[in-house]
C-alpha cells in the first residue's frame, strides 16, 4: 500500500476516532456526575476555542505572509533591523507579550484589545505572525536567482510581488495551519485575557477539579479538531532551493538570527518601557536588584546548561525523525503539539515518576522528558522543512551513497542551517515553557520561566520586568552563540 493511502486512512481514523471516544467519555462523564456544566457549556467552550485559535491563526497568516513577501520582494531600508524586530515577538514568552501589551494599554480605552476573545486572538496573532513571516521569507529566499532576475527584468515590482505571494501561499497556508494547531490547546494567553478555552479547562480538570475524565474529554476534542489539519500541515512542501552560490542570501540564515538576538533586547525594552515598568525599576535603585540578580543569574546559568543540550538533541532527533518517517510519522510525532501542554508532565506525575529512584525523580530528567515530548513535534516539523529545502538533485545524487554516509556526510551538513534555526527556536520555547515546568520542577530548583510566571501572577511587575530582561538577554546571547556555531558548521567541509 502506498504511504499516501496508509496516511489518509490513519489520519481519517485519528480524525473520527476522537469524536467516537468523545461521545463515550461524555456518556461516562454525564453518568459519573463529575465536572461542571452541560453540553451547552462544552459546545460554547469548543466554539470559543475555534474562534480564538482560528481568527488568531488567520490573522497571523495574513499579516505574517504579507510581511514575509514585503521583506523578500522589496529593498527595504534598514532591513537588517526591521526583519529581526518583526521576528522578536515569537522569541518572547507568551506571558511577557501578554503582560507587556496589557500594561501598555492598561490606562487607555484600547484595553479591550487585550481582553476577551478579541484580545486573545490579537495576541495569538502577534506571537505567531513571525513564524509565518519566517517560513515565507525562507521559502522565497530559495527562489532561484535566474527566476528572480527574470521577474525583475520583465515584471513591474507590484506584479513581481504578487507572483512571489502566489509562490509563497502554500508555505504560508501550511504555517497558518501549524499556527492553528499550536493555538488550539494554548493555556497562557487565554488565561491572561480571561477567555475560557479548551486549554485552561483541561488544565483545571486535571489539576484543580481533579476530574481526569473531563481532562481526557477535552484532549479528545483537541485531537478531533486537529487531525484533519495535521494532514495538511505535514504535506510535502515543494521547497526546491537554489544552490547556495547562486541564490541570494537567506534573510533568516544564522547570521540574521544573530541580528535577531541583537534586536531582541531593545524590542523587549521598548515594550516594557511603554508599560512604565522600567521607570519603576530604575526608581527603586539597584540595591535590591543586585541580590536578585545574583540569584537569577545562577538560576539562568543552571537552566541554560540544561536547555541548550536538550534543544540541540531535540533538533537533531527531530531532523532524523523528519527525514525518516514520512508524513504519517511526522503527524504522529506532532500529536503532543495539539494537546494541552501540561499533559506530558501530568502523565509523568500520574504514571512512572513516583516509582522512579529519588535521584532521577528529583533531578531534571523528568522535566527534560516532559518538555522534550511537548516540543518534539516542533523539532520534527522544522527538521522535515530543513530537509526539504535541500535541492532534489543533491538528494538524488546522495541516494547512491550508503544510508549512513548519505545522512551524516551529505544531508546533515546541508541541513545544518535549518537544524540550527530549529535548535534556536527550541531554546526559546523551552526557556519560556511554564506548563510542564511548573508541574515537574525539581525540588529546590529555581526555573526562570516559572519564577517569571509567578511574579506576573502576583503582580510583582518590577521584579518581573528585571527577570524578563535577564531572560531576554540570556536567550539573545544563546541565539547569537548557536547562530555563530551553526554558521561555522555550515561552511565546513
Amino acid at each position: 500500500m502506498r504511504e499516501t493511502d496508509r496516511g489518509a486512512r490513519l489520519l481519517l481514523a485519528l480524525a473520527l476516532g476522537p469524536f467516537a471516544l468523545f461521545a463515550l467519555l461524555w456518556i461516562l462523564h454525564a453518568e459519573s456526575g463529575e465536572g461542571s456544566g452541560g453540553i451547552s457549556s462544552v459546545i460554547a467552550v469548543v466554539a470559543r476555542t475555534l474562534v480564538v485559535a482560528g481568527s488568531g491563526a488567520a490573522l497571523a497568516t495574513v499579516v505574517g505572509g504579507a510581511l514575509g513577501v514585503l521583506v523578500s520582494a522589496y529593498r527595504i531600508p534598514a532591513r537588517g533591523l526591521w526583519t529581526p524586530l518583526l521576528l522578536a515577538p515569537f522569541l518572547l514568552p507568551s506571558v511577557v507579550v501578554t503582560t507587556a501589551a496589557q500594561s501598555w494599554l492598561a490606562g487607555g480605552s484600547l484595553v479591550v484589545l487585550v481582553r476577551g476573545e478579541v484580545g486573545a486572538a490579537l495576541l495569538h496573532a502577534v506571537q505567531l505572525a513571525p513564524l509565518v513571516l519566517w517560513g515565507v521569507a525562507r521559502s522565497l529566499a530559495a527562489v532561484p536567482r535566474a527566476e528572480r532576475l527574470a521577474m525583475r527584468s520583465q515584471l513591474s515590482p507590484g506584479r513581481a510581488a504578487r507572483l512571489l505571494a502566489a509562490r509563497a501561499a502554500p508555505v504560508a497556508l501550511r504555517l497558518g495551519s501549524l499556527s492553528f494547531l499550536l493555538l488550539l490547546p494554548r493555556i497562557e494567553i487565554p488565561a491572561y485575557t480571561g477567555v475560557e478555552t479548551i486549554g485552561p479547562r483541561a488544565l483545571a480538570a486535571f489539576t484543580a477539579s481533579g476530574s481526569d475524565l473531563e481532562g481526557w474529554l477535552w484532549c479528545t476534542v483537541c485531537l478531533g479538531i486537529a487531525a484533519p489539519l495535521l494532514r495538511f500541515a505535514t504535506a510535502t512542501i515543494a521547497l526546491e532551493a537554489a544552490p547556495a552560490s547562486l541564490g541570494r542570501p537567506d534573510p533568516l540564515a544564522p547570521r540574521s538570527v544573530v541580528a535577531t538576538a541583537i534586536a531582541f533586547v531593545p524590542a523587549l525594552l521598548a515594550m516594557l518601557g511603554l508599560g512604565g515598568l522600567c521607570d519603576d525599576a530604575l526608581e527603586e535603585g539597584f540595591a535590591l536588584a543586585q541580590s536578585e540578580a545574583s540569584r537569577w543569574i545562577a538560576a539562568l546559568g543552571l537552566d541554560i546548561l540544561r536547555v541548550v543540550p536538550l534543544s540541540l538533541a531535540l533538533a537533531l532527533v527531530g531532523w532524523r525523525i523528519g527525514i525518516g518517517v514520512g508524513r504519517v510519522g511526522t503527524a504522529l510525532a506532532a500529536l503532543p503539539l495539539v494537546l494541552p501542554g501540561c499533559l506530558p508532565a501530568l502523565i509523568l506525575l500520574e504514571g512512572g515518576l513516583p516509582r522512579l529512584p529519588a535521584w532521577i525523580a528529583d533531578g531534571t530528567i523528568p522535566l527534560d522528558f516532559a518538555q522534550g515530548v511537548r516540543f518534539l513535534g516542533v523539532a520534527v516539523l522544522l527538521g522535515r522543512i530543513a530537509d526539504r529545502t535541500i535541492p532534489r538533485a543533491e538528494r538524488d545524487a546522495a541516494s547512491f551513497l550508503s544510508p549512513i554516509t548519505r545522512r551524516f556526510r551529505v544531508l546533515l551538513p546541508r541541513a545544518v542551517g535549518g537544524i540550527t534555526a530549529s535548535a534556536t527556536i527550541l531554546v526559546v520555547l523551552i526557556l519560556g515553557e511554564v506548563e510542564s515546568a511548573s508541574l515537574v520542577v525539581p525540588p529546590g530548583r529555581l526555573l526562570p520561566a516559572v519564577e517569571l510566571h509567578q511574579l506576573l501572577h502576583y503582580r510583582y511587575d518590577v521584579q518581573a520586568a528585571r527577570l524578563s530582561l535577564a531572560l531576554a538577554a540570556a536567550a539573545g546571547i544563546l541565539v547569537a552563540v548557536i547562530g555563530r556555531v551553526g554558521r561555522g558548521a555550515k561552511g565546513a567541509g
Partner: protein
Amino acid sequence: MSEALVVGRLETGRGGFRGGPYDLHLEPGEASQLVGENGCGKSTLLETLAGLVPAFGGTVRLGDTTWEGPGVPTVAPWRRGVGVLLQALGLWPHLTVRGQAELAAPGAGERIDDLADRLAITALLDRRPARLSGGEAQRAALLRTLAPDPRVLLLDEPTSAQHDGTEALVRAVIRGELARGRIVVLASHRGWPGVRTVEMGSG
C-alpha cells in the same frame, strides 16, 4: 550468467507523465543512446533504471540480480552499483570536488587523480562547486559518477555544457569506460557515432 543489463516491458512515470513499455538488452561493453523530443521521458527512464523513480511495471535485471520486477523487492539505488550523472548535476556545495569523489568512492585516490587528469580538472580538485563554471561543474559531477568504478553508467546529457575541446575529453573518457566492459545508457541531443540509438516517442 552474463552480466547484461536487461530491461523488459518497463513502465515509468512521474507526475502526470507515463512512459513505456521499454525494452533494452545491453551486454558489458555496449552502449545505448536514448533520443527523442523534450519531455519524451529520457531522464525519467534513466532515473527509473537508477532506482530514483519507481517503476509501474516490467522488470530490470543486471546479470542474475533483479532490481525491479513483480513480486521482487526493489533494490535500493546505492546497492545497484550504478553511476548516475544527473542533468541537474546535484553537486554538494559543502564539499570540494575531491571531497565529493572520495565520499562516493572511499580509498579510490589513485583512480580519482587519474580521472581528474583525463577530464582536465586536476587543478579544480580542491575547489567547491560555487567556484566552478557550468562546464567544469559537469566534469566534476562526471568524476564523482565514475570514481566508484560502477558496472553501469547512466548519463543524462553528459556533454551539454562542454565546448568542442572538453567535449572530446568527456567522450574519450566514456569510451574508455566502455572499452573496460562497462555498460553505458545515455540521454543526449548530440549524436554519438557507433552507439546504438533508441528512439523514444514524443512527449
